[in-house]
Structure formats: structure tokens, C-alpha cells
């Protein structure tokens, strides 16, 4: 090889580089390990983590992951392929993206879904940017019942883009419509809410879409995608943009990622939607085919005129979603919600009966709820941890305004025995 290039050593390939930038020593990093050593090292490291029985969620839920998901998503044809810019040899990826978009479409009730976003927080932030681009206004109203992490990410995106925001206060754990109406002004491009909300409560959003439409603003609904098997879809709530997290559809907890954010909207706004979109077409022989389309919206074409800088996103995680929803179907997804609902309500009733917990809101919920307690948070955590339980998450870790509130979540994976054990542990505290 060297001969073909007319050089004697590989180093000569770097001969034109300024000497001052050449790095001539070894990196100060660990030495290499053999495969056996790697296995030992990482097994040991993984044992420094303690997987727990989960009774809190806060946006990341311990739902059932069918074995089929790993079998399919680990196929090299899906896992190691590049972004499907060559449709002739990427129909596998493009078809599952089309199926993914179809499933998000039917769950949200919106016209069109894109091919995925990074996670639920960034998809919500991008939805806000999208609203400001559509309405050519510069303010977003954020409900206080959004997950604090989602609020933080929205704030970061808006702040740097030079946009404004205000908050809609909560009343008894629910977004206060009167406060929203007072704050809807001519600058408001969009109003963003969450369902079920940060407290796990199901909001009806009665009257929201009318007030928002009258103000010519857009209604952005962040919904836990899994609950849309039973709860009103963002479309039914009157949303113009639907967004949120898909981790609950077959993805592992993974210490926070990779997950996937979904984003869906009305067809009339599709050209302002960030991210990739897959569309149906045919090849020159008339065969059904799928391609990435409307690329003129995207950064690699529009550069500084693009509405978003998003490039690669979470394609393989969209395959997780597609396989999961294929397996669950409409019945399975309803059953997941039903079982979670039953378990969560069983736990709720028992906790209230202990007399150590009170419900500050008394609103309907699905799989997640918050309670008020006068028990010491440290005491609770100590007791739960020694029983290998993650639960009663102290919401004040997200801010002082959540003081005395603890979170519980129950999925279909939690057995009655596990729930009873949690109740026993908490009942024994004083």
C-alpha cells in the first residue's frame, strides 16, 4: 500500500501538518483488555449497580418488554445500517419507519408523525419552536403540571433562541384554565400541557382548545404514548401538535437512554415539522416503496434556513416501538393500561388506609399518583432501599414547591405480592 502512494512510512501522510499540532506520545488512558477481561470488568461494574423493584416512574416506566423485541432489533440489518438515503437497499428501515409513523398517527389521532426525535423532552422543546415558526410569535405558555425536566429543556431551547415563556399555574394538581385565559395574549404562539400530568393526574382540558384557537395560538399536548391505548388522544383534546416520550413502549430503563420522542401534527403544518419523514411511493417498475421525503425542510438542504438542526435521531428505537405495538395490538395496549390502573389503585387505597399518606388532589389517575406524607423522606428511602425497592420518590428533589409530595407508579409488571410488601414496609414506619 505504501508503495502505491509513494511513501515509506505511514507518518509521511502527516508530513504537511504543522509540527506544533502533532501529538507524539501515548494517550494517558487505560491499556487494552482482552474479551475475557472486558467481560469480567464490566460484569463487576454492572454489579455496582442495583436494579430495584420499581414503584416510581416520573416519565420512565417499568413496562413489559416482549422477548421478540430484542431478537428483531439486534439484527445487524437494522442495527448497523446507515440512515436510509439509498432507498433501494434500505426498504427494511424505511418500511418500519412508515409503520412506526402509522402507529403514532393512530395513537395520537393526528394526521402525520415524523420518523422520531431524541426523547420526550427535546420533542416537546422542538414542538414549541415549531409553534413559534408557524405562528410567527415569540412566546410559549407552559403548564406547571409538566414534568420539571421537560420544562427545563423547553426553557433551555427557548432561552438560547431568544424566545419568551410564561407559566400557567396549577390548581389542585390541574392546569388552571382561568390562569391560562388571563395569560393568552397576542405574543403567545403555543400553549404546552401534559397528560397524564407530572402528578399522574388525568386532565380533561375542557375549554382549552376553544380559548387557544380563539387567540390564534397552537395547542401542544405532551402525552404518555402508552396511555393513549385508552385515554383521549391529543387529537380528541384539540391538539395542533402532539409530542412526548415513547420509552414506555418496549424500551429498557437504560439509566435514561436511548429512548425516543414522538412528534405528530396536522398535515397543514407538516412543512414546519422537524426531523425525518418517510413517505410511500413506487419504484420504476411500479413496486411499492418507501423513501425519506419533504427533505427540503431539513438542515442538509436548507442549512441556516432550516427550522431545526436535527439530523440522525432514534431510528432503531422506532423499531422497538413498532415491534412492541405489533405484538400488543389494540387489545394488549388496553390490557397493559388496565392492569397498571388496577395495581395503582390497589396500592393507592391501601396507602390511604395506613393513615400515613394523604391525597392532596383527589383527581382521577391511571398508573401513577402522588401523595402527601409527614413521614421522613430519608426514613422512607432507607427502608425501601434495604428492601430493594425504588418508590415513594421525593418530588422535592425537583424543587421546593413539591415539598412533602412523593410519587408512586405501578405497571402491569408489579405483582400483588410486591405491592403488599411495599405497603408492609411503609406501614411499619413512623
Amino acid at each position: 500500500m505504501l508503495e502505491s502512494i509513494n511513501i515509506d512510512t505511514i507518518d509521511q501522510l502527516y508530513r504537511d501538518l504543522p509540527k506544533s499540532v502533532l501529538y507524539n506520545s501515548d494517550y494517558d488512558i487505560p491499556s487494552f483488555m482482552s474479551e475475557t477481561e472486558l467481560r469480567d470488568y464490566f460484569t463487576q461494574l454492572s454489579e455496582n449497580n442495583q436494579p430495584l423493584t420499581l414503584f416510581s416512574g416520573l416519565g420512565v416506566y417499568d413496562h413489559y418488554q416482549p422477548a421478540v423485541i430484542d431478537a428483531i432489533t439486534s439484527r445487524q440489518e437494522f442495527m448497523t445500517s446507515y440512515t436510509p438515503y439509498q432507498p433501494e437497499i434500505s426498504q427494511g428501515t424505511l418500511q418500519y419507519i412508515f409503520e412506526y409513523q402509522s402507529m403514532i398517527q393512530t395513537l395520537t389521532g393526528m394526521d402525520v408523525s415524523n420518523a422520531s426525535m431524541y426523547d420526550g423532552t427535546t420533542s416537546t422543546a422542538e414542538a414549541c419552536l415549531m409553534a413559534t415558526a408557524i405562528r410567527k410569535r415569540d412566546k410559549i405558555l407552559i403548564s406547571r403540571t409538566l414534568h420539571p425536566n421537560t420544562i427545563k429543556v423547553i426553557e433551555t431551547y427557548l432561552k438560547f433562541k431568544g424566545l419568551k415563556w410564561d407559566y400557567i399555574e396549577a390548581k389542585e394538581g390541574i392546569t388552571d384554565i382561568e390562569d391560562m385565559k388571563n395569560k393568552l395574549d397576542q405574543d403567545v404562539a403555543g400553549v404546552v400541557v401534559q397528560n397524564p400530568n407530572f402528578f399522574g393526574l388525568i386532565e380533561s382540558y375542557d375549554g382549552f382548545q376553544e380559548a387557544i384557537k380563539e387567540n390564534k395560538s397552537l395547542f401542544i399536548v405532551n402525552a404518555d404514548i402508552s396511555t393513549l391505548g385508552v385515554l383521549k388522544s391529543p387529537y380528541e383534546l384539540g391538539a395542533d401538535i402532539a409530542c412526548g416520550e415513547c420509552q414506555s413502549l418496549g424500551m429498557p430503563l437504560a439509566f435514561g437512554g436511548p429512548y425516543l420522542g414522538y412528534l405528530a401534527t396536522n398535515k397543514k403544518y407538516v412543512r414546519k415539522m422537524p426531523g425525518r419523514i418517510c413517505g410511500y411511493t413506487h419504484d420504476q417498475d411500479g413496486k411499492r416503496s418507501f423513501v425519506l421525503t419533504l427533505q427540503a425542510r431539513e438542515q442538509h438542504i436548507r442549512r441556516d434556513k432550516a427550522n431545526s438542526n436535527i439530523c440522525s435521531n432514534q431510528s432503531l428505537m422506532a423499531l422497538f416501538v413498532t415491534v412492541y405495538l405489533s405484538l400488543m395490538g389494540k387489545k394488549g395496549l388496553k390490557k397493559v393500561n388496565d392492569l397498571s390502573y388496577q395495581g395503582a389503585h390497589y396500592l393507592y387505597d391501601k396507602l390511604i388506609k395506613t393513615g400515613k399518606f394523604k391525597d392532596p388532589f383527589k383527581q382521577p389517575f391511571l398508573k401513577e399518583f402522588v401523595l402527601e406524607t409527614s413521614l421522613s423522606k430519608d426514613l422512607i428511602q432507607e427502608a425501601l432501599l434495604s428492601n430493594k425497592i425504588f418508590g415513594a420518590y421525593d418530588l422535592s428533589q425537583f424543587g421546593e414547591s413539591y415539598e412533602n409530595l412523593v410519587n408512586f407508579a405501578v405497571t402491569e409488571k408489579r405483582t400483588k405480592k410486591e405491592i403488599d410488601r411495599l405497603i408492609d414496609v411503609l406501614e411499619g414506619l413512623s
Partner: protein
Amino acid sequence: MMNYNHLIFELSKEGRIGYSLPESTFNQTSIDDLDQKYLRQEAPDLPEVYELDVLRHFTNISHKNFGIETGFYPLGSCTMKYNPKINEEIASLKGFKNLHPLQASSTTQGAHHVYYELQKILSEISGLAEFTLNSYAGAHGELTGLMIIKKYHESRNDFHKNKIIIPDSAHGTNPASVVVCGMDVIEIKSNKQGRVDVKALEEAIEDRDDIAGMMLTNPNTLGIFENDICEITKLIHKAGGLMYYDGANLNALLGKVRPGDMGFDVMHINLHKTFSTPHGGGGPGSGPVGVSKALVDFLPNPRIKKLDDDFYVEHSGDAIGQISSYYGNFLISLRAYTYLLTLGKEHIKHIGPLATLNANYVKEKLKKYYDLPIDGPCMHEVVFNGLLNKETEVKTLDIAKRLLDYGMHAPTIYFPLLFPQAIMIEPPETESLQTIDEFIDVMIEIANEAQDHPERLKEAPKNTPIRRTDEVFAAKAMIFSYKDYKAYQKEGE
């Protein structure tokens, strides 16, 4: 198998189930107890299929996909190197996979260790002070890095510094990220050698006090090293700006040059390029962002810190804020950490030189057949401007499509925009000489075909699951879901 042509929805038969869920043990309540006003009116139109249907469906459509284990992937700027299997095994360990991000830090020390140590190794390799792993992809890293630059200027009350210089050869994400970050782009033309024109740069920033920084890929998107890099960084620093390194082409420099030593202040790395994590058909990637010492306080929250032997999570008021739910794509970070420990300091230093050797070899072998617009040594990738023989009607697109017939992935085409028929080839270090020679032979064969049988290229590909697609129809028809598809079919009836 290649002719398999069903959508999962078309396999659906009412009543079929593909899941295995427990029976209810709580008989007092049901989701139907909820007030109707909260419930959806119609069940979602999800398919009802058996487990085996699902497996066969996705296995069949997978056969229509090309992956790294299928064949050679000479995609310029994408660094499609082998994704080692050990990475996957480690990333599937239950102790990592089944960890909730909000668990008490005492129960996640192993995960914190991975995060902390990986960011330390990335810092050393880059010659920078600290990395965040919270950004999900390259473009997300760019945005994060630009936020840090903006925040730095604001912390010095330089609110007027909002212009970012970008060469015209840059990736499209660069200017798009600048705008999303609320700043403006000043584009600089390249000189004849495809490098930043230092004089043009000097003129562009002369007498300006609003320069926030400059984004640069080095080697640039032509695969050429910016030899004037020290002058460039000096000029930008003198103007009060910071230098941003787009890590898309970092593979070329591993073992040879550290971005920090060239004077860069902020950078991102694409773990899915340089550090062997799978592309996943377009994500999940990961785009860690590194900064020099002066910028460490601005890194996004949360951060993982170490005190003696314990790791802990910190949220700082000086940070740009939060840019992701938690710690980025953690399982991707874990794969990259595995890869780095597989190579260690003994082997990682060979990556840049071997990738560079491969590219120069391809360049020398193909320049007799393809138009090499800029001669001289290249780094890890080489850009041709179509065929040397400009007489034929064959375009770069035809060459790319013909490669598919030969069982190889196409190179990156029509980028960078500087050359109208650009073909960008990157042969990563994990490819053997035999594979590269085979690719060269195929490219030569295609060049000959272009002369003797141009129709073979115009009609290509023929040996693929589908042939060239009607993209205009896709954009016009706007069929984005099964619902749209059914409506379209109905219309046709």
C-alpha cells in the same frame, strides 16, 4: 424473500394476539371505571397479529436492508466502521439495562463510573478538560456546544457577540445549529485547495466585535487537513471568539492530533462514527461535548462528579441548563467505553494513520479514472468530482446506484457542495486490503462501463429489492401513514 411485500397492518386479523400478559389479580377495579370524558372514543387502529407473524414480518423486511455485516460501506463523513459484538453483549448486562435514571446514586455507582471514565478518556484524546455525555447526537452536540459559547460571552457581558463563522464546505447541521441557538452565520469561501481562505477570514472579521466563534471540521469535508489551523485559531481568539470543532472527521486524527492542541475550545464527538457504536439506521447516536478549562462551568446539567471513590450527581446554576431528560444515550456511551477499553492506549493510536492510509491508497488507485479536483495527501476520506471522462452522460448518481448492484453501499454523493459531481469515499480502518482492492476493482469496472455500456449505469440498480424510486410522487402525494395509504387506494378504485 426479497419479494416479500406486506405491511404489518395487512397481516392483521381481528382477535389475534402476540403478547403474553398476566391475568388480573385485583378484581375490584377496572380502567372502565374512569369517567367517559377521559377515554378515547375509538380504539387505535393497531394490527392484531401472532408472535410468529411479527418475527417473520420484520425478518423479511430486514432482508431488504444493507448493514455493515452485509458489505463494504465507503460512506464519506460517516465513518461506517465495524460495530464490535462485545459492545452489544456489555450493553445488554442487566445491571446497566434495568436501571432507572432517578434511582439513588448509591445504587447506580457502576453507571456513574462508566459515564465519568468515558468522559475522562474522551477529554484526554481530545486535549480538553471535560465532556458531557448528555447530548444525544452530533447535531444535538453542536447545539449544546454553541449554547456554551453563547453563555460564555454572556457571562462576560458580551451580549453583542452573536456571529459564528462557518466555511462553505461545512456540514448542513453547522449553520442550522447556529440559528437554533439564536445566533447568525457568516459564511467563508474556501480557497482553491479546498481549505479556509485565511485572507478572506481575516477580512471577514476585521473591525468586527460581534464574532462569537467559528465552527470548523478538521480534516474538512474534503478530507483535507487545514494546515493553517494555528493561524485560524489565533485570528478567531484575537477577535474574542471561541473555536468549535465539529468532530465528524475525528477518526482521521486519532493518535496523531488532538483538537485541544490545535486551539479548539469546544467540540463534539460522534460516538456512532469514531467510537464504533451502531448507526441504527439513523440513530440512536451520541454526541458528547467537550470543553476547555475556562468553559467547564457551563456544561449542561446533570453532571457526574467524583469525590474520593464515590460518584455523585451535580446540578449547577452556571450551566447552560438542561438539554436532555437525563444522561444522554447511556447505553450508547457504554458501548463506546467498551470499544475504547478493547483498544486501549496501545491500539487506539493506530486508527487515524490506518484510516488515512486506506483513503490515500484508494485515491491513488482511482485518480486515473475519476476526477480528483484537489491533489495531494488526503486524510481519512477522499473526494472525487465524478468521472475523469466528462464526455459520457453518466452522473455521480448513476455510479452510486451501480455500486449497489455490485453488493456495496454507495459513497456519500453530491456533498460537499463545492463540486457538482462530488463522490466522497471513506474506507475506515476496520476494512482489509482485500475488501478495499475489491472496491477499487468495482469502481474501475464502473468507470469502464460508463464508457462502453452507459445504459447499465443509467438503469442501475437492478439487483436490489427495489429499483430507483419516484421521489417527486412521494413529496406530492404525502402518504405518511397506513391511514393515508388506505385513503389513497380507495381514491384509485
